[in-house]
């Protein structure tokens, strides 16, 4: 039992009682948001390794131009690679980091609905196991791509249990994500500490609020789409005629495009925190940033049909308008980032380098998105490797770099140990090289007409050279992941103590111990802005000099 009552001058007392648990249930069924989030991150990392292995197999196939796996196996590989990375890795990690940090950043003793958060974790685990167990079925895993379009995914074109397992797995994982988003959103909106007004919430918390709003109000469309798909497979007559398949796609993309921003906003928030801390400056343009995030989130729920331009069924002009309008809030966010760096006292730590990598590489992904937002250009590039390059630049070169910035920044808070900076910089260098060597040639191949999801291509096209280069790049990425794993293991074994606030952080999580206690805080400092610890430091500096 933990009962904490100490009161700093001008601060508030945290008053929480924790009931101890048996050791066995503590690890399997703990309702502490920090443990749930850590378990989710570890599970997602295992899935990331598995999904990465599938990517290496695909790259080997394309480098050799066939002969490694069959066409059917290749279909299963890209389906499970995409499904794993979207449903089991990036989205869960984005939400799990929010689950860990948001209660700490708003000064709450625990997350709202801890049992619900635990249920979310187990749904994710059950969903992942279910999805991957498709490989054990006689017909193999699902092979209808990560979006499972009808009629490719119906019982005629995708017979067998693999597709069924995929549908149930995705449903469970998505349901778990909706539950997490509900918990994080409720915590940010209704569990804030006294003094923590909406406009004093940290940048990362705001990014999680808009993310969770999108998850809660956008993701149910996927559950509905998958429910209809399952009914179509078993009973038929659900997705029929000329509009059935289009209706499925409309429902799917109402999830499928917002999910791209769900895989983006949390990392924008992480990068914002990292840039402000390592520039030793207050985050620039906080209010404009918050408004831009909210506007961005709304707009990103109204662009989904740009994935369906070539159908010519929905209003392309409207979706081209909203897709292009995304540049405005994105521009405000980039301006805020750059202005935060401007005249800052920069510290080039690994976290900071990854944040800079995010800024530069995501820009490439974002600008090529502007090309794809234009219907005439999209007609030429749709289903080509240009699209593959675009989304890998946003999700891997962008979000994954943002995630690693967050990992290097908050790892000391999570574990109480510092990650090795030298290893971290090697990890960063290898990732930059690997990412660009793997994904940049895809723009060229796409522009030359190489289509997605092909296991072989005619030798006369001359694409093999660039494919071999991409495969070499993917091996470098794998190497960088090994360096990261070695860094984590080494840092945990030969611990270098981090202390409560090793970086001079701005937000409340740095006011508690590393790792934080079960009830998060023994005491909170006064909260007078979105950077309460920076306020304290500035006040001390004023007094001392």
């Amino acid at each position: 039992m933990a009962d904490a009552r100490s009161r700093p001058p001008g601060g508030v007392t945290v008053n929480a009682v924790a009931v101890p648990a048996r050791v066995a249930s503590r690890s399997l069924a703990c309702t502490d948001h920090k443990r749930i989030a850590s378990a989710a991150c570890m599970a997602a990392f295992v899935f990331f390794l598995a999904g990465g292995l599938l990517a290496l197999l695909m790259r080997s196939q394309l480098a050799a131009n066939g002969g490694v796996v069959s066409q059917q196996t290749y279909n299963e590989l890209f389906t499970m690679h995409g499904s794993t990375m979207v449903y089991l890795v990036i989205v869960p990690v984005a939400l799990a980091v929010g689950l860990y940090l948001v209660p700490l950043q708003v000064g709450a003793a625990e997350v709202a609905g801890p049992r619900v958060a635990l249920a979310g974790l187990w749904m994710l685990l059950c969903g992942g196991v279910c999805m991957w167990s498709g490989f054990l079925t006689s017909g193999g895993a699902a092979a209808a791509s990560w979006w499972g379009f009808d009629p490719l995914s119906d019982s005629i074109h995708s017979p067998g249990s693999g597709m069924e397992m995929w549908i149930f797995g995705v449903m469970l994982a998505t349901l778990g994500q909706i539950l997490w988003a509900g918990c994080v959103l409720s915590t940010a909106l209704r569990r804030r500490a006294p003094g923590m007004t909406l406009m004093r919430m940290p940048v990362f918390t705001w990014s999680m609020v808009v993310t969770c709003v999108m998850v809660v109000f956008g993701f149910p469309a996927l559950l509905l789409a998958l429910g209809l798909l399952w009914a179509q497979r078993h009973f038929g007559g659900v997705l029929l005629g000329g509009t059935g398949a289009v209706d499925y796609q409309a429902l799917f993309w109402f999830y499928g495009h917002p999910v791209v921003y769900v895989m983006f906003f949390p990392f924008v928030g992480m990068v914002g925190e990292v840039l402000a801390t390592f520039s030793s400056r207050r985050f620039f343009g906080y209010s404009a940033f918050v408004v831009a995030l909210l506007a961005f989130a709304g707009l990103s729920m109204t662009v989904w049909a740009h994935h369906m331009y070539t159908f010519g069924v929905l209003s392309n002009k409207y979706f081209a308008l909203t897709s292009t309008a995304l540049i405005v809030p994105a521009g405000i966010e980039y301006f805020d980032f750059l202005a935060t760096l401007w005249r800052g006292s920069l510290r080039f730590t690994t976290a900071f380098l990854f944040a800079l990598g995010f800024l530069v590489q995501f820009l490439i992904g974002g600008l090529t998105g502007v090309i794809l937002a234009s219907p005439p250009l999209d007609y030429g590039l749709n289903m080509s490797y240009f699209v593959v390059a675009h989304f890998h630049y946003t999700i891997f070169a962008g979000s994954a770099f943002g995630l690693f910035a967050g990992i290097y920044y908050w790892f000391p808070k999570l574990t109480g140990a510092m990650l090795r900076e030298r290893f971290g910089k090697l990890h960063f260098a290898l990732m930059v090289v690997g990412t660009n060597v793997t994904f940049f040639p895809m723009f060229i191949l796409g522009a030359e007409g190489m289509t997605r999801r092909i296991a072989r291509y005619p030798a006369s096209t001359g694409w093999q050279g660039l494919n071999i280069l991409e495969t070499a790049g993917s091996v470098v990425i794998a190497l960088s992941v090994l360096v990261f794993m070695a860094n984590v293991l080494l840092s945990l074994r030969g611990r270098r103590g981090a202390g409560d606030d090793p970086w001079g952080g701005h937000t409340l999580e740095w006011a508690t111990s590393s790792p934080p206690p079960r009830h998060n805080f023994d005491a909170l400092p006064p909260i007078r802005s979105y950077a309460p610890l920076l306020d304290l430091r500035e006040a001390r500096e004023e007094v001392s000099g």
Partner: protein
Amino acid sequence: MRRAAVVLICWGLWLGALTAVQAVFAPKLIQVAIPAVASAVCVLAGLVVWALDVRQAREERPQLAYQAQGERPRLITDSSVATVTLVVGLALALVGAGFGLWLILIGAGIAALGVGGVVREQLARSRTLQRKGSR
């Protein structure tokens, strides 16, 4: 009041406004219906949160003196095996939809055990809170 509802209501209205712009472009029903439902549910959720906040503010008014000392005491449960049981049961029942009634029944049985466990945990929690309150 903590004004949390403002976020949901404003964002829901913003999504509604963006959806309404489609009227100019002669949209298909489905492309209007999906975001319209999402925006309506978001506004509705905002109104629910607003009502909860108003009720909470009324309840807490007599306790202002206590509030000044910090937030209300909360009981933090450390683990919930029942929740895990419930989720595993529901997952099995869902997968059973593809594999047969036998798996649905097994899943439903495990889920029922989980529900019982959650109720038991809630009762234990209430008892603990009462004991803490009476001290």
